[in-house]
């Protein structure tokens, strides 16, 4: 199968790669670009840990064909921290013990970022709705919900 040239923005940086037809975005990010922050969980959209932002909107990278992001802007957890500083959401996740094994964390953070991008002061129900596509085995979700609400309210340690 011939390869397809593909260009897009990855965390603010232009990247150009060649992908096989049918390659999904998760594989392109992890194996061709080397960004290991989106995780492979189920490969069929059931767990949410592969979540990334495409032009600011939440997408499951395992169900997104790489070719469809040509010319678009992809954000992953790898681009979240601001220089040497953690993003307020990351800080809030740490403060609120919102990660245990950590496997769901990249997807949770991207889902939270997508929410706060469009709704800077969400209600608890809106937070629950925003992360409802993401499965967590360890935390019971409560610490994650509290972390996102704290970040939205600016209640985050320096």
């Amino acid at each position, binding site marked *: 199968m011939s390869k397809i040239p593909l260009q897009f923005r990855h965390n603010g940086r232009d990247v150009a790669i060649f992908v096989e037809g049918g390659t999904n975005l998760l594989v392109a990010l992890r194996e061709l670009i080397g960004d290991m922050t989106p995780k492979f969980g189920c490969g069929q959209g059931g767990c949410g840990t592969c979540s990334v932002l495409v032009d600011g909107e939440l997408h499951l990278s395992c169900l997104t064909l790489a070719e469809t992001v040509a010319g678009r802007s992809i954000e992953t957890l790898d681009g979240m921290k601001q220089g040497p500083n953690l993003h307020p959401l990351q800080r809030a996740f740490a403060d609120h013990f919102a990660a245990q094994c950590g496997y769901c964390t990249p997807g949770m953070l991207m889902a939270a970022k997508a929410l706060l991008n469009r709704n800077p002061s969400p209600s608890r129900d809106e937070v629950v709705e925003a992360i409802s596509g993401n499965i967590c085995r360890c935390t019971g979700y*409560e610490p994650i919900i509290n972390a996102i609400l704290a970040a939205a309210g600016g209640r985050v340690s320096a």
Partner: protein
Amino acid sequence: MTRHRGRGMASINYPIGMNLGGDPSQALVHSNPSGKFTVALSSIDLGQGMKSVTRQICAETLGVPVEDVYVDTADSDTGPHCMGSFASRGTHRVGNAVMAAAREARGVMMEAAAEELEVNAADLETDGRGNIHVKGAPHRSISTKDVAIAAQFRQGKTISGRGIFLVPLSDVDPETGEMSPATCYAHACLVAEVEVDDETGEVAMVRMDSAYELGRALNPRLVEQQLVGGAWMGVSHALYETPEPYYPDPVHGPRDFVEYLMPGPGDICPHDIAVLERPAPDGPFGAKGPGEMCANPVLPAVANAIFNAVGVRIDDLPITPEKVLRAIKAQGGARPQARR
């Protein structure tokens, strides 16, 4: 269609660790010339916080700041032996091994400091901030870093310690059947309130209230996190998860997260937790271990709550809507029990 509320409770007695063929874990502690300490373990931190807790135990025992201790769990081929991270044994077994190793390392550190300060080691104490000084004379002081440098480059000593904690195999008494499979037990009680829909058989969690007695909580935030999260693993086992719903035929078994159900963020309910600390005599700083016990009382409490709500007794997990509905139909309708 009616939704029936029900409340159920369960109490558990949870053994810390397993009998196995004897249940040992080892730890090694040594200082680097920088005066920082490394704890070598082959025990695995799955995210439950064992690295944090063993780090605290080591720092406290050595008498140095927690940031001066690094816990290395890198390699079970080269690290000191551990039976594994299971049966809630990490804090208790590994913690005790780390404590023993740190105690031995502290002995060497104090001897090395004594030589530098030209005093008797028994007259020295640590300040917990990285200094060792003569008791009652804080100005006669040396930093742990300088002690480490002196031990390495002048005295030719390794500041190190070995630790093992073994709960020996408990054989069964052939006459009485008596045995002691564990040396300490944690305890919990949980009350679950559920809402059962008698048309769909669905069970929704309404709230949970619990009390856990787990020895001393060495890291209260980690304990809280474990209890909050673990309860939902219990709910998940009670209501959702099963690898083989038609056991022993695996044909219809779930293959992925679409078929293998777990609670989502929209399924959770308030959960009030009280932590009771009764230090265990043989635990590191009195700790037992909150590992698995956080999930266990939830299952019987939920089953009891469902009985209380609609009068059906389901003894086969998970309690799926299908099982609830069949049982309600079999008894000719929901029969709410008295609320206590």
